[in-house]
C-alpha cells in the first residue's frame, strides 16, 4: 500500500508500485479530470503536480508519490476559480477540452515560480503540451492574463 495525499486529502493505492500514477488517480481514486493522451511523456495531457512540481503522471510510478502531495486539476483551487481558470474562461480557451487540464496544471507550475513570465518563457515552458484543437495562442493569452490579473 502506498500513501500520499491528493488535493489535500489522504489517499492510498493498493496497486503495484510501478503502476503509473495516472491510472491510480483516474481509475482507483476517481479523479478523472487528469487525462491520458500518450502514456509516454509525449503530450502533457496527464500533467499533475507532485509537491508543486509538474510531472507527467503517465510515466510516474505511484511509488514516487509515496508521502507526497499530489495536486490534480480538481484540487488546483477549491472552487474552480484559480486565476488561470478564470483566464481560461475569459479567453474561451478550450475546444474539445481534452488537453486543457494538463495545460492548466503545466501553466500553474510556471506562474508559481515566475509571476510575470515573458511570452518566450511561456512558450518554452508549455511547448511539451500538445493541443490537437490548436488553442495554443489562446493558452498564451490566458497565461498572460492570469499573470496580470493574478
Amino acid at each position: 500500500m502506498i500513501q500520499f495525499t491528493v488535493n489535500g486529502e489522504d489517499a492510498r493505492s493498493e496497486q503495484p508500485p510501478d503502476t503509473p500514477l495516472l491510472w491510480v488517480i483516474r481509475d482507483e481514486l476517481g479523479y478523472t479530470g487528469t487525462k491520458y493522451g500518450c502514456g509516454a511523456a509525449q503530450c502533457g495531457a496527464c500533467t499533475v503536480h507532485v509537491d508543486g512540481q509538474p510531472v507527467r503522471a503517465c510515466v510516474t510510478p505511484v511509488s514516487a508519490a509515496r508521502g507526497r502531495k499530489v495536486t490534480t486539476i480538481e484540487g488546483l483551487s477549491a472552487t474552480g476559480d484559480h486565476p488561470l481558470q478564470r483566464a481560461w474562461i475569459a479567453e474561451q480557451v478550450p475546444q474539445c477540452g481534452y488537453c486543457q487540464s494538463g495545460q492548466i496544471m503545466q501553466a500553474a507550475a510556471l506562474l508559481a515560480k515566475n509571476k510575470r513570465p515573458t511570452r518566450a518563457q511561456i512558450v518554452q515552458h508549455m511547448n511539451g503540451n500538445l493541443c490537437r484543437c490548436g488553442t495554443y495562442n489562446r493558452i498564451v493569452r490566458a497565461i498572460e492574463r492570469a499573470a496580470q490579473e493574478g
Partner: protein
Amino acid sequence: MVERDEARLLDFNVSRRAFLGASAGLTFAITLGLGGAGGARKAHAAGGAHALNAYVSIEPNGTIRIQAPAPEMGQGVMTGLPLIVAEELDADWSRVVVEQSPIAPAYHHPIFKAQYVVASISTLGYFMPLRVAGAQARRVLIDAVAEKWGVPAAELATEPSTVVHAASGRKISYGEVAAFAKPPAHPPKIDPAKDLKPGDRFRLIGRPVERVDVVAKSTGRAAYGIDARVPGMAYATLVRAPVRGSGPMSANADAVRKLPGVVDVVMLGHGVAVVADTFAAALKARRQLKVEWKKGLPGDAIDTDRDLEKYLADGRDMKHTGVVFHSAGDAAGAIKGAARVMVGEYLSDHVYHAQMEPMNSTASVRPDGVDIWVGTQAPTRTTLDVAAALGIGADKVHVHQHFLGGGFGRRATVEASVDAALIAKAVGRPVKLVLSREDDLAAGTFRPMTTQRIEAGLDASGRIVGWRQRVVGELVGDFVYQPGYVEKSKNRDVIFMSGAMLPYYEKVANVQSEHVREPERTRVAAWRGIGSGYTKFAIESMIDEIAHAQKADPLAYRLSLTDHPRARRVLEKVAEMSGWGKQRASGTALGLAFAEYGLFAPKIGSLVAAVAEISVDRRSGRIRVHNYWAAADAGLVVNPAGFQAQMESAIVWGLSSALKEQVTMTNGVVQQSNFHEYNILRMSEVPAIHVEILRGPPPPTMVGELGVPSAAPAIANAFFALTGKRLRHVPFTPARVQAALKA
C-alpha cells in the same frame, strides 16, 4: 447502418433564400412531439417543469432547459444550436441551461436522419428545425397566457423570458407561465414563412456568446467517454490487425491470461483484446501479447514510398481512366486546342487524426438491454451497429453521449463501441475499452495519400481555357460506410474528391476532375477538411504557377478568374488585412490561397481566402509561418465567437498537416508509434492568426473545417515567392524543403 441517401444529400437543392422562404423551409420543419424524450425526462425530474416540446422545458423558477441534439467535440454546437432555439423562444439566455439531448428520433439531423456530426453541417441542418422548435414553445406560452388573461393571442408579444400585453401593460415571466400552463394536446403548427423572427430582430444570433462547456472544460469536470465508470466494470485494451481486413490466426492468449490482474484474452475477428481488473494491468499485459496475423491481404504489400511512385505513373497514364467527379464544358478538347499547356504534379501523404483522447467506449451487455457510454460523432449509428453486432434490436441499445476529446472524422465510425460490446458480452461484465496511443495510431483510419496531376490549357493571352485535375488514390466512402456505397452515390467519392472543382473561378469554362482509383488496401476515413485538404493544395498551387508564368500578381490573377461577389470579397479582404503587395521585411514573403468548402458546394458553401507570411531557414530546411490572415464567409453567422475559434483551430490543423504530419507504411504496417514520431504543430510553431468574418445571408454554412484547405497552398505559394522553388509534396518536411531548394 444508418440509411444515409447520398443522392438526397447532394440534391439538397435549397437556395440560400429558400431557407427562410415559405415552402422550401417547411420541409425542414420536423414535427415535434410534446414531451419528447429529453423534455419529458426533465419534466419528471424537475417536478412541475413543463416540457413544451422535445427541445424546451421551462421550470417555474424561470430556468429554461434546452436540449443540444448534436455531439460536442470542440466545434461549439452545444452552444450554437441551443442558441437558435433560444432566439425564437425569446429566452433570456442567462436563464438557459443546455443539456446534451438523448439519442432519439426527435433529435435527428434532418439531412442525415440521424444524430451524426460530420461535414460541418450541424448548424446548416438544424437551423430551421430548431427555430421552429423555439417558436413553437413560445407559442405554447403565449396561448396559455391568452387563455388565462382572456385576451387574443395576437395582442401578446414577448421580451426575453417574458410575455407582454401592451394594451394593459401586463407582463408575466416564462417561469410564472410554466407554473400554470398545460401543454396542449396538439402542438401548435409553426409556419416558417410567417411565424419566425425576421433576421433584423435577432437578439442572440449573430452576437458573440461564451460557450456553455468552457467552465467544465477548465475545471476537469467535463465527462468524456474515457471517464465513464460503471459498477463492476473491467478494463480492456485492443490490438487490431495492422492490415485492413486481416485478423488473428493465433496468439499467446494462455500465457497472457496468467499475467497479474488479467481477466481474459478475447479473440475478435479483427483483433485481440486483453481484459483486466485495471487499465494499468491491461496495458502491461498487452505488451506481452504476441499475435500471428492472417497473411495474404492486399494491404500486406503496402509500401507508401514505392506506391506513391506508382500513383504518379497512373496519374500520367491517360489510359488509366479516372471516374469523373466534376465536369463543365469540354476540358480535354480545350486543352488540346490550347496555345500552351502547363502541367503540375502534387503529392500528399497519409495523415492521422491524432485526436487527443484515444478511441474508447464502455459497454454493459445484459439480457434486458445494452448500454454504451461513448463520445461519438455518430450516436445513432452506434446504436444500430452495436445492435447488429450483437444480433439484437436497436431499441435494446442505449447510447449515453459524452464529450469527445476530439473527433475530426475519427469518431464518425463506431468500431470502438462495437468492440466494447463484443468484449463485454464475452467476459460477462461491463467493460471499458481504451486503446493505447500506440494501438490507436497503428489501427488509425487515415486521410489517404494522393498524387495529383493538373493540366491547364492557356490561350495566347494566358487565360485558362481548359483545366483537368486527376486525383489518384483509394476510395474512402466504401470503408467509412459499406462496400458499394460510392457506387450507389452516383459513383462519386465525395469524401475523397471534395474540392476538386473550380466553382468560383467561373471564367474557367472547361473543367474536369477525375478520381483515378487505386486498390482499396488502407483503413481510411474522413479527416477534417476531407479531400479539400489536398485538392485545394493542388489547385491553388497550380493557379499560382500559372499566375507567375504570366508575370501576373497572384491576387490580380485570381480576381481575373471570378466575378462572383462573395469570392472577390474574401480575396480583397484578406489582401487588405495582410498588406498584400506591400514591401515585406527581408527574408519573408507572402502566399495567397482561396477555397470554397462544403459537400454541397457550390450550391451551398463557405468561402475562405488566406495569406501566409513565412521565412525559411535554408540550413535546416525549416519553414516558419509568422503570420496567417484569413477572411471567411459562411453565410449567416450564429455565434461569431465560435466561428472565430473554429477558424483558428482549423488553420492550426491545416498548418500542422502542411508542415509536419505524415504516416508511412512498410509491408502494410504503420511506421509511427506515438507523438514523438507522428508530429503535430506545437505552441512554438504557431503563427499569429488573424481572422475576419464576413457576414452573409442565411443559411449558416460550414465553419468547422473551413480553415483547413487554404493552409498548405498559402505556405507553398509563399515559399515560391521567397525562393522561386515549388513545394509539391505535403507535408513540407525539412528534407523536402532542402530538396526543393537544391532543385
